Structures are given as C-alpha cells and as structure tokens.
C-alpha cells in the first residue's frame, strides 16, 4: 500500500484492506475477511511446526529461537500433552496458542466425563476448530493468531494429524507444516513418504527437516522440541527423551553438512566438465 509520512507525527500505513479490515465481522468486496488474513500473517513468520504420521505412530516437532541467554531452558514450551494419547504444538501468537491448549484440555476432560471414553483426535480437532472459528464471526473478539497441529493415536482409527489455522479450517494430514519454514518442510515431507517408516526412523528425518528449515538463520541460536506417540513411548504422548533427541540432532547436523558438501562437490564437477567440454576441441 501507500505510505504516508507526516513530519513530527506517527507514520500511517494505508492498509491493503482499505476500510474493510477494521473488524472481523466485515467482508470485503472481493469476499475476503482481512482480519482473518492478518491473523494468518501472524503465523507466517513464526517458528516452524510440523508433524508426520508414521506406520506405527505420529511425530510432532518445532524449532524455536532462543530469545535470551538468561531464560530457563524448557520454560518456553510449544508442545503440550492434551490427553495421554493426544499432543498439540502451537506457533504464531503463543499466548493465544496456550489459551487454546487449555481449552483443548477442558474439552477432552468433559468428553471423557460424559461418554466414558477418551476423546479422539478428530473430534478434538473439530471442536477446537469450531472454537477458533467462533472468534472470526463476532464483532467483539479477534481471531486467534496461531496455527496448531494436533497429533493423536486412537485405538480404533490409528495415528492422525490435524492442522488448524486461524480461520478455523481443520484438515487431516499425513504430514503437515506451518510457520516460516513450511514450504521447505512440506517439500521434504512429500519426498519422505513417512507412512512407510516407523516413528523411530522418522524421528531422525524430523530433526533433519527442522534443522534444514532453520538454515537461513544459522547465526541465531535455536533448539528443537520433538514429541511422539508410538510403541517406543509406550503408546502415550511423550517428549523425545533428551539423549535420543541429542543423538538425532547430531546425526541430522552431520547429514546436512555432508549433503551440503556433496552439493558443492557436484557443482565443482559440473564446472570441471564444462571446462573440459570447451578445451577438448
């Protein structure tokens, strides 16, 4: 949009919505709800989150920038257990995300109380999606500015992943990602075919993809949070044990460096071949 600058006064931006974006209960003439789009922007530049469904379970992971050296490690949590067999990871506006996690815990508890069985991933995802959507129709509330991935392992339906965005859209996936590195992550997940791997094997790939997503900002310190629901974790949602995670990350770094070297080498070979082509006449 245009930028107006006034001497001595604050800078005003003419918004892309130009008048149709003041509240979430207004539709623009093109049929968009700008407030919801702005909420989605809040998640576009935030930490990458991703999940993968495997043969015997499901994995969740996120990379988070370490904001301050003085912070107690582990206090900026992104991956939470909602029930024994359901985990959730959040990205975007984190306080919004944590509020949704509380809501999810309440929904699960009340479902269990009423029906006697643990809530399934799909039902929980639908309920949270409806709840997020509610904030996109009324005047007095704003949308939740976060993407969440819900991973679950039910007796009946097996492992499942659901991704919910600020508009309240909720789909089931075999592999999904959101946040800054989502494009890289999605490409890698598609190439991987995690449905044929076990969780143990896939955890390495998860670490590798998350490291890859972070490559552009190598200078900034970051750490990973990974969790799984699989036979190794006793079929409950559990953070990856620290030693396993450390080992996987080290291997992931090594592999990425090797691949980078291999890329450079193949580039050199290509150049040599080109030189040979020109000098062989």
């Amino acid at each position, binding site marked *: 949009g245009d930028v107006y600058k006034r001497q001595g006064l604050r800078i005003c931006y003419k918004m892309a919505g130009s008048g149709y974006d003041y509240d979430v209960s207004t539709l623009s003439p093109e049929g968009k709800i700008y407030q919801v789009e702005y909420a989605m922007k809040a998640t576009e530049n935030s930490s990458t989150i991703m999940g993968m469904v495997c043969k015997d379970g499901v994995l969740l992971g996120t990379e988070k920038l370490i904001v301050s050296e003085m912070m107690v490690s582990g206090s900026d949590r992104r991956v939470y257990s909602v029930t024994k067999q359901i985990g959730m990871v959040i990205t975007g506006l984190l306080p919004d995300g944590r509020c949704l996690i509380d809501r999810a815990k309440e929904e699960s508890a009340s479902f269990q109380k*009423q*029906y*006697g*069985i643990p809530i*399934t991933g*799909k*039902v929980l995802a*639908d309920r949270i999606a409806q709840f997020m959507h509610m904030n996109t129709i009324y005047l007095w509330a704003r949308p939740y500015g976060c993407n969440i991935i819900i991973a679950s392992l039910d*007796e*009946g*339906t097996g492992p499942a992943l659901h991704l919910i965005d600020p508009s309240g859209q909720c789909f089931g996936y075999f592999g999904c990602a959101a946040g800054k590195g989502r494009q890289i992550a999605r490409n890698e997940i598609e190439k991987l075919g995690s449905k044929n791997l076990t969780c143990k094997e896939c955890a390495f790939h998860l670490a590798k993809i998350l490291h890859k997503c972070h490559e552009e900002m190598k200078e900034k310190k970051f750490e990973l949070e990974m969790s799984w629901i699989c036979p190794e974790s006793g079929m409950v949602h559990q953070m990856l044990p620290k030693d396993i995670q450390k080992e996987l990350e080290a291997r992931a770094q090594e592999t990425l460096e090797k691949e980078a070297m291999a890329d450079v080498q193949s580039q050199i070979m290509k150049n040599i071949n080109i030189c040979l082509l020109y000098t062989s006449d």
Partner: protein
Amino acid sequence: MESTDRFVPVRDGTTIMAVVYDGGVMLGADSRTTEGSLVYNRVSDKIEPIHKRIFCLRSGNSSHTQKIAQLCRLYVSQLGSELEQAPPVYSAAKIIQSFIYNYKSFLSAAMICAGWDPVKGPQIYTVPLGGTLVREKIATGGSGSAYMSGFVDTHFKEGMTRKECRDFMIQSISLAMFRDSSSGGIIRLVDITKDGVSREYISHDQLPLKQPLSLIH
C-alpha cells in the same frame, strides 16, 4: 380410600435378562407393566433401542426408565455423529449411569444396557438402583430375576450358540413369569449381532411353562 392409593406409580415389575453368546448378545424381557395390582399393559415393550446396535432393558418405575432411555438415545446419537462411527456401548451405559447415580434419590430405575460395537464386540453393562456400572457376560434384573437365579446359575455357560442361548433365555424368563406376579404376558427377545438386529416375541401358547388360560390377565 387413603391418599396413598390414589397415586400408584406405574412400574415395570419385570423380568429382564441379557446374555452374551458366541457371535452376539441376546436381550429378553417379559411384557407386564403394573400399576399397583392392576396390569396396566400386558404387551409392553421393555427393550428400548438406543442406537443401531445398542439397546437397553428397563426395570423399575416406567416413567423414570423411559425418560432415561430417551435421554440416553439423544446423547448417544450426538456421540455417533461426532465420532462418525458406531458409538461404544460403554458410552451409552455411562450416560445411563450418570443419570441413575446423580439422581438416585429421585429415581427408581435399574437398567441393563447391551449391544455390539466394532472395538469390543458384544457387551452387557448393568446399572442397578444405586448407580454402579458393571460389565457382565450375563445380566438379570427386575423382580422376577430372583425366581430364576438358581436356574441361571446352573445352566449358564459362556460361548453358547444362538439357539442354545435363545432356549436358555426362554426357559429362564418363563420360570420367572410363572412365579412372579409382577411379570407375565409374552416374552420379547432381541438379538444383536454385527450383521444386524432381529426382534421376536414368544406368545403364551409357545411358552414352556404356562399358566392355565383362566388365570391370564
């Protein structure tokens, strides 16, 4: 006439019974509903459908048990549409339990919830007066159940065939109806398997133990 005589609650005096056999579960009940000493309905149906493969048997105060069954049907249908698959029998039993337990000082209801679901197969859950929830392979209830306990304990075995189960149930319920004044009429049977539900009734002349016609209400 004393004031207590004017309002006598309609009761399913009853004999109700459910048995898990090899391949499904069979529910059986008599058909007598009494109001004091009057037989209010001699062909009543005490087997209530809750969902496609879940039924419940009612005993105690008729209005209480009908209402509980109706509410159970409502909640289970909501659960079924949320889950998008067959709701567990356990959930239906839990809903019945929550009503009977939480309102036990107001209600006089004892129910048996039985059915089939894809995860656990055929199941029976009893919820007696106080609101306990117990899963069983065979359940009996109602005032007539006392008169058939000896027979049931002797002749029940797990994993009967459908025919054995049907004969066993018809015999037991007849015995109860023969001796209990609050049970009588016809025997209603419902058979639930994974392939479907079938209903039948055994009329008076087919009962193994019959009272002479002149004594029938």
